[in-house]
């Protein structure tokens, strides 16, 4: 039963699309996009979380040089007027389980608004509406290469594998300044969610865990690879949120998430417990006509499991502030992140304190080309580095990346 829901959704999507394919009126030529993101990397980072280390960067000191940041293929297919299918697959050029794998795959039901209200339904695997930073195609940030600590964690550990409903009141279409949305999600296959932040703490990168992939490579050490999108206890999780927009200038989001995992359950095949994880997330994004953007996000939660009558808990919290200015095809951004994981375990396993500064310049001359230069410095204190790796608990890691992305296809923008 484990890990079959994404496959079930993919099959459901295909079976839904197949009969529609017989009618030219129902199935249109799909919209698609192919992106290739090449990087020149210079990093002095510790062994990366990608390779089983406790480093906070995607690339560590052994990985400086020319890298493939991401190769991405996206497909969007309208099925009739109100249904659509969305697939997003990526290759990350590291030792994942599959060289090309899905990050999102879902069906969307989006009927036309009625009297100022609209209902939307998503079914499949997709991101919950939390990040105010990852707003570009492929859940990328238009501001920086590396996401904030909060959104890196969401990219690593969270995916809604289930259904999400959204009820919109479209005030801006009825002479008001506000749009308001109520959002609710019901999901499974998220029981190990929490294990990465508890074991490795927060990090800052753009590496998104794929639906059939893992965090870490096959020879990850000392932290072994982790598979996240599994159902262990048969209990669905939920989230409920609110989004409000003031014209297109200000967006506020608030969401409560609880995977409702049974903290006593475990799965021997993937060698993990069901981590009971719940958190609150709020965010605000404001934009001006002069090209300024400010984003604030805050997240506070806890993950725990019960092993041999031990109550092990890891409260975590993170926040960031981002300021960005766009002038024509140029964008400059700066972000400050602060994050902490407390540990209620015997050895203090997983405790972490840290902060990070990110500065980025983006040049986007047209819809095909995008050039990004990013400087990222993470300062962190993790006592577990001494125990597990025999290295000092405090570390300052710096990563500089120059990325060139080329995008092709009707969806490229």
């Amino acid at each position: 039963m484990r890990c079959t829901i994404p496959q079930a959704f993919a099959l459901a999507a295909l079976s839904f699309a197949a009969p529609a394919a017989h009618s030219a009126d129902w199935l249109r030529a799909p919209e698609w996009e192919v992106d290739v993101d090449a990087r020149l990397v210079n990093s002095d980072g510790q062994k990366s979380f990608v390779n089983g280390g406790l480093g906070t960067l995607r690339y560590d000191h052994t990985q400086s040089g020319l890298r493939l940041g991401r190769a991405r293929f996206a497909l969007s297919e309208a099925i009739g007027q109100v249904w659509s299918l969305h697939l997003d697959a990526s290759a990350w050029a590291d030792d994942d389980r599959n060289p090309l794998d899905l990050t999102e795959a879902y069906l969307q039901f989006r009927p036309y608004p009625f009297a100022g209200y609209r209902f939307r339904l998503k079914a499949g695997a997709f991101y919950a509406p939390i990040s105010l930073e990852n707003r570009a195609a492929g859940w990328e940030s238009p501001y920086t290469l590396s996401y904030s600590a909060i959104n890196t964690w969401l990219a690593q550990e969270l995916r809604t594998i289930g259904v999400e409903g959204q009820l919109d009141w479209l005030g801006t279409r009825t002479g008001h300044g506000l749009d308001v949305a109520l959002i609710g999600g019901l999901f499974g296959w998220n029981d190990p969610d929490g294990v990465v932040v508890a074991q490795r703490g927060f990090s800052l990168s753009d590496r998104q865990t794929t639906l059939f992939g893992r965090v870490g490579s096959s020879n990850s050490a000392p932290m072994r690879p982790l598979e996240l999108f599994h159902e262990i206890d048969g209990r669905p999780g939920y989230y409920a949120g609110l989004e409000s927009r003031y014209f297109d200038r200000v967006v506020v989001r608030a969401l409560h998430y609880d995977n409702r995992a049974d903290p006593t359950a475990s799965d021997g095949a993937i060698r993990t417990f069901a981590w009971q994880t719940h958190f609150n997330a709020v965010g605000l994004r404001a934009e001006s006509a002069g090209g300024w953007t400010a984003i604030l996000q805050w997240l506070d939660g806890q993950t725990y499991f019960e092993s041999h009558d031990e109550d092990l808990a890891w409260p975590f919290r993170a926040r960031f502030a981002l300021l960005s200015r766009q002038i024509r095809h140029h964008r400059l951004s700066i972000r400050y992140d602060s994050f902490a994981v407390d540990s209620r375990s015997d050895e203090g396993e997983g405790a972490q304190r840290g902060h990070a500064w990110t500065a980025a310049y983006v040049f986007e001359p047209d819809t095909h080309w995008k050039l990004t230069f990013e400087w990222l410095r993470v300062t962190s204190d993790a006592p577990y580095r001494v125990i597990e790796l025999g290295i000092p608990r405090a570390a300052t890691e710096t990563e500089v990346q120059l990325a060139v992305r080329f995008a092709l296809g009707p969806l490229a923008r």
Partner: protein
Amino acid sequence: MFQSRYIAGCFLALGSLLKAAGALAGALFVAVQTSDGRPLAGAVLTVHTLDGTGRPATPVNAIMDQVDRAFVPDLLVIPTGSTVEFPNSDSVNHQIYSFSAAKKFQLPLYRGKRYPPVRFDQAGFVTLGCNIHDSMLAYVLVTDAPYFGRTDSAGAWSVELPRGTYRITVWHPRIRESGQLEREISIGDADRTAVSVRLTKSLQPAPLEGRHSWDTY
């Protein structure tokens, strides 16, 4: 500024000719200002006759395109009975909708396919959106007024009118005044009648321009 004066001058010259024939009595000059005294460009002015003599303007065939996930133009003012074509010059599909009382419709715009124009028979405001791209927002003002127009960059608009009494209505997508701003005037034998309208409330923020075509989530 020079252009508006030149156009006004043309109107006056034309008016003099018509007045000699007994058709027009005077020129109406309207100036619209924001609450802080700046000229308001693009404000829509409609002029209805109050004595029941004016007829609605002749219907037109207008175009509202979709370019870079935006409506172009984002505001049309058309007489009742006019049609609007939505050609979709984008590489992606759109789904245009309106649930405004004056015209409710839904129109899928799949790329590479032409769709018949939409006819607007009822006077009123029509707010348009795209069901796929929420940032897309546009307005169609359908009017049964015999005279209408929009202010220029100096916030000015002028028209030649026959002798009579009129109701002038001012509207702009960003004004906060509930309903429309109205003035009643009489045009006699005077050659020019000036009406100044100053908003009492600040404008709503303008849509952010050209920066959100990548907005997906």
